């Protein structure tokens, strides 16, 4: 994978910090300090309030913050991947090489998923502590964070980030300007996935005379990121678990479909 020249170049451009050594060290210490301070206060809060529910409550906060960050960042990290190359007039020279379409598409996607991976990794230690703390204190099983919860949540996070980032790349591939690609990505993430599914389902519920069960059983809601996360952190029944699985599978499947489409549709000639 790291033999992909596009991936190496993208990582180099993203991770290069051209300021002096002192500034680099200061920036690193700053990040460590902020993350450390956050961890400290969260842990202090939990230790002062010896209640398993607090552990679970903090776990909700950590997971929630990570998920919101991912949903906000994922659409935009890839939305300029191809349009920026066209705008800065490097696209022609890139396409004119012997790079395969999959090298270009996959290289750009993987490199730009790094911030999402970083968000997940930075929050994971605290999430682990909160989850373990909730178990140590004891209490009713409904208040515990199980291993199943843990994996479901992080799998959903990764799938959502992957899906939204892939859509951003798809928009960048399809459209001519970075601004349009960013707008399309956020419109899809917020307008379609989050609000659109809710509104359409609400309308259908009203039409069918919903008895309260239809709303979350509507297949559209299986792709709503807020609903999926609610199921992942909660205690879904078998039906909801299946719906959650379909939703996550849908995210991954659609992402792979978009990747395939970009590669297959990559013209042998740059322009027609």
């Amino acid at each position, binding site marked *: 994978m790291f033999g992909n*020249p*596009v991936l*190496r*170049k993208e990582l*180099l*451009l993203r991770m*290069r910090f*051209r300021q002096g050594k002192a500034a680099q060290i200061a920036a690193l210490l700053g990040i460590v300090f902020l993350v450390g301070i956050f961890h400290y206060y969260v842990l202090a809060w939990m230790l002062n309030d010896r209640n398993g529910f607090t552990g679970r409550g903090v776990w909700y906060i950590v997971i929630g913050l990570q998920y919101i960050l991912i949903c906000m960042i994922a659409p935009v990290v890839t939305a300029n991947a191809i349009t920026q190359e066209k705008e*800065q*007039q*490097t696209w*022609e*020279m*890139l*396409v*004119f*090489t*012997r*790079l395969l379409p999959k090298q270009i598409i996959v290289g750009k996607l993987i490199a730009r998923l790094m911030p999402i991976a970083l968000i997940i990794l930075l929050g994971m230690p605290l999430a682990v502590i909160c989850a373990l703390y909730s178990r140590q204190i004891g209490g009713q099983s409904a208040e515990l964070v199980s291993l199943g919860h843990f994996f479901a949540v992080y799998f959903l996070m990764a799938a959502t980030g992957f899906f939204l980032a892939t859509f951003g790349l798809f928009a960048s591939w399809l459209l001519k300007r970075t601004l349009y690609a960013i707008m399309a990505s956020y419109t899809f993430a917020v307008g379609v996935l989050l609000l659109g599914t809710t509104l359409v389902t609400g309308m259908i519920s009203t039409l069918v005379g919903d008895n309260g069960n239809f709303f979350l059983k509507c297949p559209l809601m299986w792709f709503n990121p807020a609903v999926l996360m609610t199921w992942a952190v909660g205690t879904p029944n078998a039906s909801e678990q299946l719906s959650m699985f379909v939703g996550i599978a849908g995210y991954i499947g659609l992402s792979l479909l978009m990747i395939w489409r970009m590669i297959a549709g990559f*013209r*042998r*000639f*740059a*322009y*027609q």
Partner: protein
Amino acid sequence: MIEIKHLRKEYKELVAVKDLCLELDKGDIFGFIGPNGAGKTTTIKMIATLLMPSAGTVIVDGIDVVRNPEQIRSIVGYMPDFFGVYDDIKVWEYLDFFAAAYRIPKGQRPQIIDDVLALTDLTIKKDSYVESLSRGMKQRLCLAKTLVHDPKVMLLDEPASGLDPRARIEIRELLLELQSMGKTIIVSSHILPEMEEFCNKIGIIERGELIVAGDVNTIARQVRGQHTIEIGVIEEMERAEAILLGMTDVLREVKVTTGMREAPNSPDEPHRRAMTLQRVERSGRGGVIQIGYVGVIDEEYKVLAALVQAGIKVRSFNAPETDLEDVFLRVTKGQVA
């Protein structure tokens, strides 16, 4: 090396390139000349597999660009007229990326990078960031990038655009060096005097049509209908004139310049009506006579022999530099797409 047959590119309401035919041999430097919007960049992009032709074929080193675009990219180097660079990347990293993109093995890349940097005189900037380079250096870096996979054919779209005179001279010298390495080069440019200096063949395109193409001097002669020769005479200008006036079978009318005494056109001498001798300059009893030669190619020496045998003291006998601008203006109509 390059065969283009009936190449055509159509858009909805515009035919950008019409039925273009061209053949180039290995080692040719072909100057592609034309006004803005004539179709130069479109043609170059079709050869470079960046644009799909609407019709026609382009064969480069036996490979069809439409059927095998990936193969073409391994033997063709392309330098666009407008190009960007990546920020936050060093010169050697930039070249290393493109070397990897052209599938050059990792072990060979450092030496190749050093070689192309030396060729383009950028060795001193190897560890500099690309964005810190001047315009001329970026052009040279782009040329280095174009050379990194040692292409047989190079397509250069306005390589000297926006450069100062020194940088343009450096690019020109580089192109001549590339020619000596056996590369076939297609260069498009508006700077006609420079094209004369390093191109052995030119093509003039206007509104998508290739009006003329071929050897520079042959085209100039075709356009003007004659081959211009300047003869420097030390003395006896009038006798030299009289001798030349008598050679009506190989000499014809030439361009008028200042300080001249026009030779009389006598209605009793119809064979002389088509010919006029013009003195370009006078210096004492000598001067320079410019003639238009329309005889057999490579037999211009007969004119010199005639003068020498008549005892005329000839100081110089040469063809002035082909005025490509003159050729361009005569051939084109000043129409843009």
